[in-house]
């Protein structure tokens, strides 16, 4: 057992439990997706600051999202979801025929050079209410981090800020952390052989700066700060939104009692987590590891006893 291993059960103070006796307060991200405009400034700022290689010039053809998900070369990822559902009780102005206020046009003339107005080609059911959900995903910097637990070299470690970082000069590319992560965050860079993920800009934190993504976010959808303060701010924010009629607003990953002991990067979402590609109820796999060792110990004993028994009895 090294000093980097967090205590089982989710320490309230992960940096202290990891052997940083005199450490700064734990920091994190609160990503408020209700004000995200999907500009991807965070993706770009992250790439620029951390000098991350190009992650494939793909065209996903499903949405404005062409980076798809987090990976070795994508440490911030903006999800795009279009839904036939209103955002809260907002009126979009393109209601189905007969559903909107009297006199409102069913299709809207935007004055754009085209042969027909947007919405003309669709039937009444094809128009109507819709919303776009946009959310900037990132490493959760879990209180109980599976990647950190399973790393056999100690390359992954807990920083004094309570974040989880890979030491690239130690990682030998075993890849164990990749299937261990319940969120699909950390990933192996094929041509490099090592694993990579968000460091919460460890270098910037040391200089008293906020991470590049939070710095670049034009709407403060990505908010960086002390985790305790962010949790209070998020609780107020979700209450405000729900009182204003956005009853789909909920927090994700803010609860220290959840399956990863609370995420260091948590979110305000407007739909179920799985809609954004997030697991609805992730549990760190190492919670079951003591039971796994017990079963493996029994199985080893059964194997030894069973094979020894084959030598018993008369010789035939």
């Amino acid at each position, binding site marked *: 057992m090294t000093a980097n291993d967090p205590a089982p059960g989710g320490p309230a103070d992960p940096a202290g439990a990891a052997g940083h006796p005199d450490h700064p307060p734990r920091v994190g991200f609160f990503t408020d997706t209700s004000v995200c405009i999907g500009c991807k400034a965070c993706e770009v700022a992250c790439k620029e600051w951390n000098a991350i290689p190009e992650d494939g010039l793909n065209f996903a053809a499903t*949405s404005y999202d062409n980076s798809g998900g987090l990976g070795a070369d994508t440490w911030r990822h903006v999800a795009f979801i279009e839904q036939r559902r209103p955002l809260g*009780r*907002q009126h979009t102005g393109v209601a189905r025929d007969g559903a909107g206020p009297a006199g409102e046009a069913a299709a809207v003339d935007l004055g754009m050079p085209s042969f027909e107005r947007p919405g003309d080609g669709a039937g009444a059911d094809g128009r109507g209410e819709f919303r776009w959900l946009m959310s900037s995903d990132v490493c959760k910097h879990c209180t109980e981090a599976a990647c950190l637990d399973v790393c056999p070299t100690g390359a992954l470690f807990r920083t004094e800020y309570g974040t989880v970082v890979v030491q690239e000069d130690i990682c030998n590319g075993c890849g164990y952390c990749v*299937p261990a992560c319940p969120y699909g965050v950390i990933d192996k860079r094929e041509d490099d052989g090592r694993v990579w993920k968000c460091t919460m800009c460890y270098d910037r934190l040391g200089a008293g700066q906020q991470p590049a993504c939070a710095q670049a976010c034009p709407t403060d959808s990505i908010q960086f700060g002390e985790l305790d303060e962010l949790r209070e701010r998020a609780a107020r924010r979700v209450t405000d939104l729900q009182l*204003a009629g956005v009853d789909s607003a909920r927090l994700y990953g803010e609860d220290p009692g959840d399956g990863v002991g609370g995420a260091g990067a948590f979110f305000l979402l407007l739909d179920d987590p799985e809609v954004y590609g997030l*697991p609805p*109820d992730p549990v760190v796999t190492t919670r079951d590891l003591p039971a796994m060792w017990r079963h493996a110990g029994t199985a080893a004993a059964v*194997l030894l006893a069973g*094979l020894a028994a084959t030598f018993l009895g008369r010789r035939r």
Partner: protein
Amino acid sequence: MSTSDVTRQGVRGARPARDALTGSARARPDAPRRDGRAPEGGFRSYYGRPVLNRIPWAARDIAGYLFLGGLAGSSSVLAAGAELSGRPALARTMKATALGAITGSVAALVNDLGRPARFVNMLRVCKPTSPMSVGSWLLAGYGPLAGAAAATELTGRFRRPGTAATVGAALLGPAVAAYTAPLICDTAVPAWHEGYREMPFVFTGSGAAAAAGVGLLGSPPAENGPARRAAVFGAALETAALARMRRRTAAVADTHRGGRAGVLLRAAEALTATGALGAAVLGRHRWAARVSGAALVAGSACTRFGIFYAGIASAEDPRYTVVPQRERVRERAAAGLA
């Protein structure tokens, strides 16, 4: 550009827009409230993309590692039994097999590293929370013992220390065979993690069957009695544990049925059953023993590759990640209401 700055006194200059009540503007009193629940019986995902990242392990290396580790560990137990019970030909075969298999498994593990030259970093720390760290230390202890056992046997020198090494390898061997189950189960991969109770028994059973198979291939009928009995023991343990694992978990049952995993696991069942039956009934006949032995070795390899591919399939389909977790959330909500 964000106007806010992090100072020692906290964030300064935050934009007031972060408090915008998006979605509440022009609120329409008649608009229905929607709670965005998933459609009944289905599950939702982000464009059908997997939640987990692609497992970066090569099948040949890692499934091969699981197979060879089980073969080596079980072979060492049979080797010690054969030596102590006076079956020199069986002992010789099993010691050579243990050394060959453990060498091959370490080679596969190193080959699968992104930075093979940094293999020794595995011994930089000792972490019980990482089955791969525990396994590295196990191999570091077991490998030299298996090597010494085989070297003294094949050269005929240092027989007494050789016997001590043989017994030492036999005591560590079952741990080498069993630890690979926590290795793959200690992940978020549904078909591996959810089977963590039974997986060690599947793996030790499969390892015993493989070692028995090599014993049947490489020893005369006069000495192969333990191998015949080990074949039945290993096959029965593996089959029973697999059946129980499939009964208990949908992700396991589904992924063991379809795709490449399904083909491999059906082949494994047929080969293992045939091999065990052949060993039990016809094992005293030289050629029948060899055919049965080959079937058992092939069956064990198919089991490991099948389980490996089942894990890959369960990670690639968001269904196996989302549905059980959503079910947990629902149960908690129901318990909270009750």
